[in-house]
């Protein structure tokens, strides 16, 4: 994909008075994911402080920052793996305080992990079917006694899983054990499994880690494809700048648990604070 088409797909960002940015096309609606002043302390250490985000329905945003800046901690806060010490998180307008990770997922947040966490002993199709689990409705007894409804549903969702695998052209791996897949395919499978839970927001934790430039390029196309096809918002953490600058509409830069800059990729690239965070003070003239 050439860089012009990417430019075209990127909508205009409008500055709002809140600390958050939202693409213009999503302005009329409530943000699908909103975090207000969230922070967490581990003992005396403030890992994340005063983090704000508001994501439009079909927005792709990026979160970058040096190692240990607190990016993954933010993902864990947004998915309720950690309970925030301060602040509120709203998913589609619902406060997630006190909810379990599963409930937050049902509200519409799905995620992938920095170190791949697949169900490695299960087949690829089964991995995706686990994601579909909450949309399947059969009762335990129906399943155990193999009523016709069970077979109908299994067939239906098997087909759906194959469709989903088709996005990354992975149907031929359907009956392979997930743990035996090549690395790149495992990362892709994790994204598909997250998509199977019908999320409204997809959180990708370093999706391009360990990928070569070609694969990263392909991933970029796929991220845009997923957004267009499923009409969901995507928030990603990434160290690969070509990916972040290529797909994200808004980029936030995190350092020592605080957002130090926020804006379009172009603005971020020019921001002296960002350059300082990455390269040190001497880089700034």
């Amino acid at each position, binding site marked *: 994909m050439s860089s012009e088409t990417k430019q075209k797909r990127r909508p205009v960002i409008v500055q709002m008075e809140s600390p958050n940015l939202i693409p213009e096309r999503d302005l009329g609606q409530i943000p699908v994911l909103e975090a207000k002043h969230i922070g967490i302390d581990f003992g005396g250490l403030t890992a994340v402080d005063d983090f704000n985000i508001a994501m439009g329905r079909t927005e792709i945003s990026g979160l970058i920052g040096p190692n240990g800046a607190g990016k993954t901690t933010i993902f864990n806060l947004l998915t309720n793996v950690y309970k925030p010490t301060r602040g509120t998180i709203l998913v589609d307008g619902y406060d997630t305080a006190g909810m*379990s990770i599963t409930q937050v997922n049902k509200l519409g947040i799905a995620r992938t992990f920095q170190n791949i966490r697949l169900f490695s*002993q299960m087949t690829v199709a089964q991995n995706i079917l686990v994601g579909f689990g909450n949309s399947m409705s059969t009762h335990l007894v129906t399943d155990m006694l193999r009523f016709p409804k069970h077979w109908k549903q299994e067939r239906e969702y098997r087909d759906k899983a194959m469709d989903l695998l088709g996005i990354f052209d992975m149907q031929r791996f359907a009956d392979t054990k997930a743990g035996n897949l090549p690395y790149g395919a495992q990362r892709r499978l994790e994204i598909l499994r997250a998509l199977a839970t019908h999320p409204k927001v997809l959180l990708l934790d370093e999706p391009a880690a360990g990928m070569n430039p070609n694969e990263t390029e392909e991933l970029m196309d796929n991220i845009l494809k997923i957004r267009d096809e499923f009409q969901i918002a995507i928030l990603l953490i990434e160290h690969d700048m070509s990916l972040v600058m290529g797909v994200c509409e808004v980029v936030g830069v995190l350092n020592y648990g605080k957002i130090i800059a926020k804006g379009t990729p172009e603005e971020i690239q020019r921001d002296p604070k960002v350059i300082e965070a990455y390269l040190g003070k001497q880089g700034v003239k």
Partner: protein
Amino acid sequence: MEEDMATKGKPIISTGSPKGSKKRKTISTGKRYIINTVLTVLVIVIGQMMIDNGSISRYQGSVLEQVGIYIIMAVSLNIATGYLGQLPLGHAGFMSVGGYSCAIFIMRMMGPMHVTMYDFMTGTPATTLLFVCGLIFGGVCAAICGLIIGIPALRLKGDYLAIITLGFAEIIRVVMLNIDSVVGFQLTGGAKGLTGIPSYTNFTNTFVVVAISLFLIHTMMKSRHGRAILAIRDNEIAAEATGVNTTYYKTLAFVVSAFFAGVGGGLYAGCIGVMAPAKFGFMKSIEILVMVVLGGMGSMLGSVISATFLTILPEALRAFADYRMVVYAIVLILVMIFRPQGLLGDYDFSMGNFLEKIINGEFPWKKKQAEEVEADE
């Protein structure tokens, strides 16, 4: 580490669909069920015929019944260890709850239903009804215990879960020992045990129950519920993030495991004829756990084979009375050294797939080409 062990020696990726271009013959699901049912019925009928004409002695027959019982015990424990990935050590507790409640239920209901001890020998519709209700009652009682212990215990993992379930099994044992003086009338018979249990089991009904239990456990594991349980074993955090209600499914697996342990206990009471709390100590739980580990955690066939083997082995070695425990131990040590993942690992046999390969001319004993990664059912 574990993953490495399990995947070692297998081809990285099977070629998958290109093989399908040859137009592989398949066996439809309906036919598979018919084949399996016919085979199961055949085995049971042949077994019963051999018992009737005396080729299997009464003693061997009762050993076979115990084999069936331990198959249920091992497969039910496998739900919690192999599929859910936890380590409960209190399976004998559930077994005794099921055994006592089933035996007491049947003994108390014999009067009102006008069934005598001798009716169980010949078998009447009333005894069949009692048998089925008794086993279900035993299973439900054990499942309730499983629920009570499961909710607090499953918040813990690994060693802690093992200890709490171990403690729970001991509590059950002590309750069974002393409950008579608490309730004020004879219920379990205390230390001298519950005697006079009619022998309501025989080869046929034991193995019918075994077949039904295996079927139900299999179908549960091959459904969305089973997949959720396996997902928790493989990666709990990812399972939660993928929308699996981990608390619910852990408890479910534990309760189902306890239910079938109760059914197995019910059969055990009928088979042995005497229930005593001392039989359901720590060693019984360990014995069942050894069967699961030896067969391969997460493999139903493995549990079946090792339960059969480990029940028959001590009986077969009776002639060498003094040495049998030594041989038993040596067998276990050898298996753990040479096959730490258990006899079958997580391989599961599927008659349908096996026959499918035969009719397609891919004989499993001619393993020249790269073998495919097994898919079940």
